[in-house]
């Protein structure tokens, strides 16, 4: 067996037991009593700030009160009414920046009501029983195409199915779920939760998922609009921003999203190779997820190198602290210059940066970090604009997700506006579904 000190990139750095321990639930689920105690802390605020802070507008005080009174099933219904992926959002939402930041107890005591964990308690209660609390309306006879089986696509599909439409989802990957399945840290979606959630969500009926279809490749917008009166695009950001530095092509230089995807799909974590010295370039959630999981796999040193200051980092302070508590070193104001090595990477050269007159530039001072493995986590991009108008680098949409093309809606990470969060994608999918429904039923 190898160890954290084994040179290069190697598998089996830790024992099976340590790996299993490292990749358990980040936040253990609440048991019934813990949930009752946590729920009791909610003040049932008037016009509660937490609701306003939730991109899906879940009636949080109501669902917490329903937990407090012993009806977590009713609480789950309250959550799912607004957010059918409430189970995943309970696990991955940056609640510290959303509902829990707005909680009045955060202001009062610096200790908000544990909304995320309570939401998980409620949603788990229902999902573990396999109960789908919604029924489909009378069939409308309409068929809608959804491209992408990630959070936005699934949310849209479920709402449409509920309203009586038949939905076909086209997805590029062999499994549905999008980033929930392939893109987030394993310790946030344990026990195959993403796949179980898809199975549960589609149990409402009327949703068919076809795999192996990639927009702009073997699927075209013209084909879709020809067959379906309404199309919802939720293709996410499938491309990765390029990093143009010397040595970018050395062995050991990889995209963080690929590493995470491989890890999420691995049956045996001990078979996953990871560097002794890992550097992740970037400052978002993907960077944190890749860094922490490298450490959990047994890397000796892991560093996140971010070119701006801490405040500009898009990973929340909570995520930064999570990384630090796992032994990940956070470096700010450094940008990559070159990957050194002879074939394989052995070191990453970084240059310190400074911002002058709002412009970031190198100071000339450099530092070399040992690096067997370098992960690029500097953002993702659209792979195709599908002939639609763009807003910046994303598809331009109205409030209800309408694109520049009649009959085509878009939402989730591929659409402009809103944060690139699961919960935002869910809201956009849901709202587009309502608009699609209204459009299809016009004159009905």
């Amino acid at each position: 067996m190898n160890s954290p000190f084994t040179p290069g990139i190697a598998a089996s750095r830790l024992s099976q037991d340590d790996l299993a321990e490292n990749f358990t639930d980040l936040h253990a689920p609440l048991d019934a009593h813990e949930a009752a105690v946590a729920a009791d802390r909610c003040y049932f605020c008037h016009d509660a700030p937490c609701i306003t802070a939730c991109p899906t507008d879940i009636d949080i005080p109501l669902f917490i009160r329903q937990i407090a009174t012993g009806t977590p099933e009713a609480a789950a219904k309250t959550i799912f009414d607004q957010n059918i992926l409430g189970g995943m959002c309970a696990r991955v939402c940056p609640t510290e920046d959303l509902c829990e930041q707005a909680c009045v107890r955060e202001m009062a005591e610096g200790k908000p009501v544990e909304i995320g964990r309570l939401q998980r308690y409620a949603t788990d209660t229902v999902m573990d029983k396999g109960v789908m609390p919604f029924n489909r309306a009378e069939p409308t006879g309409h068929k809608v195409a959804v491209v992408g089986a990630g959070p936005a696509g699934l949310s849209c599909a479920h709402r449409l199915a509920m309203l009586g439409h038949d939905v076909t989802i086209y997805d590029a990957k062999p499994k549905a779920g999008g980033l929930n399945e392939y893109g987030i840290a394993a310790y946030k979606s344990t026990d195959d939760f993403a796949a179980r959630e898809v199975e549960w969500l589609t149990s409402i009926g009327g949703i068919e998922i076809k795999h192996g279809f990639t927009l702009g490749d073997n699927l075209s917008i013209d084909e879709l609009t020809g067959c379906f009166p309404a199309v919802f695009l939720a293709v996410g950001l499938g491309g990765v921003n390029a990093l143009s530095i010397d040595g970018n092509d050395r062995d050991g230089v990889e995209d963080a999203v690929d590493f995470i995807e491989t890890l999420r799909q691995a049956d045996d974590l001990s078979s996953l190779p990871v560097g002794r010295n890992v550097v992740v370039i970037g400052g978002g959630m993907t960077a944190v997820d890749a860094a922490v999981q490298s450490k959990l796999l047994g890397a000796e040193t892991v560093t996140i190198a971010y070119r701006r200051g801490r405040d500009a980092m898009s990973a929340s302070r909570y995520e930064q602290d999570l990384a630090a508590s796992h032994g990940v070193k956070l470096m700010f104001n450094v940008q990559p210059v070159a990957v050194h090595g002879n074939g394989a990477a052995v070191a990453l050269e970084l240059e310190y940066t400074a911002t002058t007159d709002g412009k970031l530039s190198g100071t000339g001072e450099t530092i070399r970090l040992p690096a067997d493995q370098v992960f690029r986590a500097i953002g993702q991009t659209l792979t195709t604009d599908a002939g639609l108008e763009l807003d910046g680098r994303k598809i331009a949409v109205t409030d209800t997700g309408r694109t520049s093309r009649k009959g085509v809606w878009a939402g989730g990470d591929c659409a402009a506006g809103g944060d690139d969060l699961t919960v935002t994608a869910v809201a956009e999918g849901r709202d587009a579904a309502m608009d699609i429904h209204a459009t299809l039923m016009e004159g009905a």
Partner: protein
Amino acid sequence: MADLTTDFLGIKSPNPFWLASAPPTDKEYNVRRAFEAGWGGVVWKTLGSEGPPVVNVNGPRYGVIYGADRRVLGINNIELITDRDLYTNLEEIKRVKADYPDRAMIVSIMVPCEEQAWKDILPLVEDTGADGIELNFGCPHGMSERGMGAAVGQVPEYIEMVTRWCKQYYSKPVIVKLTPNITDIRKPAAAAMRGGADAVSLINTINSITSVNLDTMSPEPSIDGKGTHGGYCGPAVKPIAMSMVSEIARDPETAGLPISGIGGVTTWRDAAEFMSLGAGNVQVCTAAMTYGFKIVQEMISGLSQWMDEKGYTSTDQFVGRAIPNTTDWQYLNLNYVAKAKIDQDKCISCGRCYAACEDTSHQAIAMSEDRTFSVIDEECVACNLCVDVCPVEDCISMVAMEPGTVDPRTGKVVEKEYANWTTHPNNPAATAAE
């Protein structure tokens, strides 16, 4: 540290905290543990007549009301008087009293409403060396069906009669324990006084059903699918008990009658409140049953600290001090005008005051776009509901308006002079000013 020694009816105890007649005082073992823990006195669990003792149910005896985190707010019970042999109890009482001469030992008694029954038991109790007796006229369940307990306590004539027998056949203090399951607590108290009682103790437990099992449709505690009303006690009953204590302390007929206060005493503060309303000491049960005997240590230290802070050197200095300020509604000053005031630095913007006022009161709180909550003086009647529901202590307060200023709600000048309903022009029964 203030001296907590209390003299109640000539019975001295090192502090005013007695354990009430109840399950915790049923046996020598428990009572010794209580005295070791520091309790000032004990009212031994109620003795019945000689002969086969009563039997208890063999299923649950207690039901409960929970607050947050399963905090016990109230317990009810369907346990009867002692189910142990009379002589076993008497021997134990004698032994414990001999070993703890500085603690108060009171024996609770409940025998049928016949003179001979009392004539038989009282000499036996006298022989134990206990400091006094308490007549259990309060138990609302089981025993009342047999013509004892609350069945006696609900008929003032019986109270007077039995009390008189006790004074006749027993030489030491007689305390009459009153049931709250009546309409006017002053009537049984006056009856006890006429019968010669040295004191009353109150309240006994309140008729109650704590909960219903919605699966079996049986009240809790449920015995083989059936439930019955039990006696309710604990923090939830304290307000009822304090009101009754104050009624007796205030009524001219019973004023001055010593009172042992019972009902939800859980902390030193509860005890101080009962005593300020006229109780010479307090009796505790539910708090001990919830947390064990050790809680008396907090009661002792807390009461001492408070007395030191206030400059009281003995408990009798504050007994009844709140009674002059306890009055009838008709004598409240209607010229006193207050307005709610929200401390914006303390406000956490939960909006509970707004919801309460807007939905259920006087629409006197305004809410801004940025969740700033402020009082609309033109609408505020100073009802205090916002203060009550605010989760932050001292965030909202009631501020009295200065005489001479104008109340924006009524447009009237706040008068300096006291004026009450008895002379108010809207009162059809108003009497001319005296």
